[in-house]
């Protein structure tokens, strides 16, 4: 699973050495609705390097979101531990920014107030930073609008801008583009890669779209159908920077085949176990 090539090149383009490595040790989450134990994720041992872009794919109900929520600190694991740069995490924190499938911009704040919220709460507000991020995300001029006035794609851009304003080492993204139409989705994928190339934050990206997973990531992790474990890790050795043309290359298709066959196997296993 060595990924040294990419992380090394990533590291050298970063102006400041950035941290953001994640270590999971025998991470387990058991839900207990009415005495009925459901193991969502089971003894996951996983290391993500600082600056690495990792996609998590798997059949629905495999515990992808549980894993992400554990890293975010929204859910406390039943046992096991998560370390960020060697320190065990304790609840949510500004070092781990989260983007969700449905936008969670605060509806009572304008787009600019939403973007400035993180820096404001941490006493690090900078004049003009919000405008800079809005234009970087291609939604300049929307700062004074309320989130409900924007389209779905624009809301996701604003939400990413809000995350970037806080400058977290880690970006946790839970199917952020799955509610968008196909064209908007492609634009957002390229935009996300542009941002990532710029400052190499660690990204954990959940999706059910295999092509999206491969296109974006350094490493695609395929999860087993409940209880969730990491079934397979596929190193994506496609050259960076990437654009959508890469999705038509033979290598991309090979990787896609490899990932799909693993997922189909899992989906089948899941259906059989249900029957």
């Amino acid at each position, binding site marked *: 699973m060595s990924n040294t090539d990419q992380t090394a090149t990533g590291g050298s383009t970063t102006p400041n050495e950035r941290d953001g490595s994640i270590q999971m040790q025998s991470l387990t989450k058991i839900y207990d609705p009415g005495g009925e134990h459901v193991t969502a994720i089971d003894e996951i041992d996983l290391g993500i390097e600082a600056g690495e872009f990792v996609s998590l794919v798997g059949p629905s109900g495999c515990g992808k979101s549980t894993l992400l929520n554990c890293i975010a600190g929204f859910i406390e694991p039943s046992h096991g531990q998560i370390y960020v740069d060697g320190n065990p995490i304790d609840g949510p924190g500004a070092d781990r920014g989260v983007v969700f499938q*449905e936008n*969670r911009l605060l509806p009572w704040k304008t787009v600019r107030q939403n973007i400035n919220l993180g820096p404001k*709460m941490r006493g690090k507000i900078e004049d003009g930073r919000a405008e800079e991020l809005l234009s970087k995300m291609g939604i300049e001029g929307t700062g004074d609008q309320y989130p409900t006035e924007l389209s779905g794609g624009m809301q996701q851009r604003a939400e990413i801008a809000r995350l970037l304003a806080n400058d977290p080492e880690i970006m946790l993204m839970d199917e952020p583009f799955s509610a968008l139409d196909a064209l908007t989705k492609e634009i957002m994928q390229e935009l996300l890669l542009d941002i990532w190339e710029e400052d190499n934050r660690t990204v954990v990206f959940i999706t059910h779209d295999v092509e999206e997973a491969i296109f974006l990531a350094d490493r695609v992790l395929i999860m087993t159908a409940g209880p969730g474990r990491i079934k397979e890790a596929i190193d994506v050795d496609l050259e960076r920077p990437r654009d959508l043309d890469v999705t038509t290359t033979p290598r991309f298709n090979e990787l896609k085949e490899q990932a799909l066959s693993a997922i189909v196997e899992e989906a089948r296993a899941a259906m059989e176990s249900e029957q």
Partner: protein
Amino acid sequence: MSIADSVEDKLTVARSRVDTLPSVPRWVLKGLSIALFVATWWLLVEIGFLGFDLLRTPLETAVSLVSFIAGEKMGQGDSIYVHAYHTLYRVVLGLGLAVATAIPLGLACGWSDWWRSYVYPAFELLRPIPPVAWVPIALIALASEFLGIIWVVFIGAFFPIMINTMEGVAEIDAEYAQAVKSLGGGRWELYRHVVIPHTIPSMITGTTIGVGIAWIAVVAAEMLSGGPGLGYVTFQSYRLMDTGVVIVGIIVLGTCGAVSSSLVSRVGSYLTPWTDEVRK
């Protein structure tokens, strides 16, 4: 061309003709509705339906309304302005106290299990009591007409504001809290950036209901306790069968109620610009 198409065409032509007709302005329709009401009132007084012959006609009422506005004394010898001032003062004070206490309590009981389990039950006990039923005990216990009326107005406005605030807090999505925590916010930031702004529309709804009840409460309390005040003078004039003052009292009370609730909703929409944007 199919039959459906030709029918469609004819309909379109017909519709465009209707559209070009000058439509009746809205104010004409509103005026008609009011005119009909006044006419009915007049008719009922003229034919003396039940006890209507004891009332005044709209014209007589308008004349006495004008003379009271010009400063003529009503009832006991106070002008309409003195009565209105006392009543308004009680409503503002009682409502203000209710807003100032019900909102923090509603936030606390909505947000914290401890408050909901150990503080809220005491309030739950008092809630079903109709505000007007408080009048006798409030007048005795508080040993003053003024404080007794204030209490009744306060308690009437308090519960709708508190309950609405509590329910507003309960509707908060955990997702917004997560978003703020991931941006580095702590407990206080959660209150400031999520709990309070999210609940403002519910506070306004509660206050709108509270204002309505405050007016009911103040009129009832004044009728029972004594004057001066609009409720008092209206009731006193009924005893003296001075129906002119009774009707003017009703009109002035109605106007005050309407003005105060439109004031609350104006302040409300000023405080919640994001909900206006949704409406657009």
